[in-house]
C-alpha cells in the first residue's frame, strides 16, 4: 500500500494552475508595466534623449541639471508642504467629520452625500470651480469687499507665497469626503463595549477618541494614508486646472515638472531623471511598508 509512494507528486508549476493563469494579467501589469516601465524610465534617465528615447548615455548629467533647476527645487518644496498639510488636514477633517457622523445624528445620509459628492468630480472640474471661487475679481474676495471690508485680501491663487494653500483648499474639498467614509467605516468597526467601558470609567468622549479609539484604528489610518499619499505624489491635474503652476513657478509640483520636460521641453532624459527621483522617494517610503503589510511575513488578513 505504501509502495505507490510519493510518485504522484505533481510539479510545482501546475499546482494552482488556474490561479496562476488568472493572475497573468496582474503579473504582466506588475512586471511589464510597473516594473518594466520603471526600469525603462530609470535607464533612459541616464541618456540625453530629447523628443524620442535614444540610448545616448550621458551619465549623471540629467540629475545634476535637475538638482540645480530652481523649478525642481520649488516643486519639491511645494510637494512637501502640500503633502504634509494635505495629510494632516484630510486626516483631521475626515476624522472629525466621521466622528460627528457617528453620533447617531439625523440626516446622516444627506450629510454623507454632501461630504462625498466632490469626490465624484474630476480634479479638472475641482480646479476650475475653485479657481473661480478664489478669483479676486469675481470670487470670495470681491464678495467680501462688496460687503464693506474694502481691505479684505484673499487671493491665494495670485499670491506666490500662499498659492499652494489655495490648491490645498480645493484638494481638501475634493478628497476629505472619501477619508471621512473610510474613517466612518473604521469607527463603525470599533467594539461597542469599548464605548460603554469608557463611559462607565467616566472618560470624556474626546479623551476616548484620542487615547482609545484612534489608536485602535491603526489599519484604517494606514489604508487612508496609502490612498491619500498616492494621490499626493501624483498631484498634477489640480495644479494645471487651477494655476498652471503659477504665479510664476510658485505652485509647480514634481509630476508637472516631469510632464512638462518630457513633452513640452522635449527633453525626455530630464523628465525621466525627475521621474526617477520621484520613484526613489516613493520607494523609500513605500517598499518597506508594503512588504510588511502585504509581503511574506504576515498571514491572511
Amino acid at each position: 500500500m505504501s509502495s505507490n509512494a510519493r510518485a504522484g507528486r505533481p510539479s510545482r508549476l501546475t499546482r494552482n494552475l488556474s490561479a496562476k493563469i488568472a493572475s497573468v494579467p496582474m503579473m504582466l501589469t506588475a512586471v511589464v508595466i510597473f516594473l518594466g516601465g520603471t526600469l525603462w524610465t530609470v535607464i533612459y534617465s541616464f541618456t540625453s534623449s530629447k523628443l524620442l528615447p535614444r540610448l545616448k548615455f550621458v551619465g549623471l548629467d540629467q540629475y545634476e541639471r535637475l538638482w540645480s533647476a530652481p523649478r525642481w527645487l520649488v516643486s519639491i518644496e511645494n510637494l512637501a508642504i502640500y503633502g504634509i498639510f494635505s495629510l494632516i488636514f484630510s486626516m483631521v477633517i475626515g476624522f472629525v467629520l466621521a466622528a460627528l457622523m457617528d453620533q447617531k445624528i439625523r440626516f446622516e445620509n444627506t450629510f454623507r452625500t454632501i461630504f462625498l459628492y466632490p469626490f465624484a468630480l474630476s480634479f479638472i472640474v475641482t480646479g476650475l470651480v475653485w479657481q473661480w471661487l478664489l478669483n479676486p475679481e469675481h470670487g470670495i474676495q470681491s464678495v467680501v469687499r462688496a460687503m464693506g471690508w474694502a481691505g479684505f485680501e484673499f487671493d491665494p491663487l495670485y499670491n506666490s507665497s500662499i498659492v499652494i494653500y489655495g490648491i490645498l483648499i480645493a484638494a481638501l474639498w475634493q478628497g476629505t469626503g472619501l477619508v471621512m467614509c473610510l474613517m466612518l467605516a473604521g469607527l463603525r468597526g470599533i467594539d461597542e463595549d469599548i464605548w460603554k467601558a469608557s463611559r462607565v470609567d467616566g472618560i470624556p468622549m474626546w479623551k476616548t477618541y484620542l487615547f482609545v479609539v484612534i489608536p485602535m484604528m491603526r489599519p484604517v489610518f494606514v489604508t487612508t494614508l496609502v490612498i491619500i499619499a498616492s494621490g499626493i505624489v501624483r498631484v498634477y491635474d489640480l495644479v494645471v486646472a487651477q494655476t498652471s503652476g503659477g504665479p510664476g513657478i510658485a505652485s509647480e509640483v514634481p509630476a508637472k515638472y516631469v510632464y512638462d520636460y518630457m513633452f513640452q521641453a522635449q527633453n525626455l532624459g530630464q523628465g525621466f531623471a525627475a521621474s526617477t527621483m520621484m520613484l526613489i522617494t516613493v520607494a523609500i517610503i513605500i517598499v518597506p511598508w508594503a512588504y510588511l503589510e502585504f509581503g511574506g511575513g504576515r498571514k491572511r488578513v
Partner: protein
Amino acid sequence: MKKTAHLAEVPASWEAGPRGARPRRLLSTRTIVVYGTLFVAAAYYLLPLYVMIVTSLKGMPEIRLGNIFAPPLEITFEPWVKAWSSACTGLNCDGLSRGFWNSVMITVPSTIISIAIASINGYALSNWRFKGADIFFTILIVGAFIPYQVMLYPIVIVLREIGLYGSLSGLVIVHTIFGMPILTLLFRNYFAGLPEELFKAARVDGAGFWGIYFKIMVPMSLPIFVVAMILQVTGIWNDFLFGVVFTRPEYYPMTVQLNNIVNSVQGVKEYNVNMAATILTGAVPLLVYFVSGRLFVRGIAAGAVKG
C-alpha cells in the same frame, strides 16, 4: 425589619425623583456643536456646487456685474444648451454632446473589464495564494504611487508594440492597468474577510477556481463590487489624459470637450457655459454616487478598512 426601614426612608423622594428618560434639552451644547460643525462643513462642501449652478443659470452680463453668490435675477438655460450642443472647439460646434456617448463607450467596458480582472486578482491573492504572488502584489501597490505621466511613454511603446494604440481596446487596457492596484487591494481585503471555510467547503464540493469564483464569491460580494464600480466609473469618466493620449478624436471622451470648452477662450471666459459644461460632465458620476452612496460606505467598511 430592614425592609420597613428602607421603606420608611425612601418614599419621600420616591415619586418625586427623576423618572423615565433623561430629559434632553433640544439644544444641548453637544447638539449645537455637532450640528453646528456639520452644517458649517456642509456649507463648505456645498458652496462650490451652489456657485456652479447659480452661475450656469445667469447670463454673461449678470456675471460680470454681480457677485458670484447672488441668485440669478433672470434664469437662463442658454448656457446649458450651449454647453451641451453648440459650444465650439476648433471647428466642431456641437458642445459636449459628441463626447457623451464616447464617454459611455469608454467607461462601460473599461469599468467592467478592470473590475473583472481586479476581482479575479484579489480572489487569487486571498484564496489561492501561490509562491511569488505577494511579490507581484507588492509591485502593484507600489505602482499605485507612480504618477501617471511617468508611465505614459512606456505604455505608448507597449501599446504600439501590440498594435492596440489608438483603439478603444487600448484605452480599456490602460484603464484596467491603472485601476488595478487599488481595486486589487480592495478585493483582496474583501475576499480575505469572507469566511475561509466557505471556500474550503466549495473545494470539497469539487468546485474549481472558476466555479468558486463565479458561484460562491461573486454572489457574496455586492458591496465591494459597488465600491469598485463607483471608483472606476468616477475615475474613468473623469479621465482626460488617457482619453486624449491613447485614442483618436472620434473617441474623445466628454472631458476632452470640457477641457476644450473651458480652455478655448473666445474673448472673455464664458463662465456660465463653463459651469454648465462642468456640471454636465460631472453628472454621471454624481448620479452614480447619489444612487449607490449607501452601499459605498458599507463596501468601504468591508473592503478597504482592514489593513
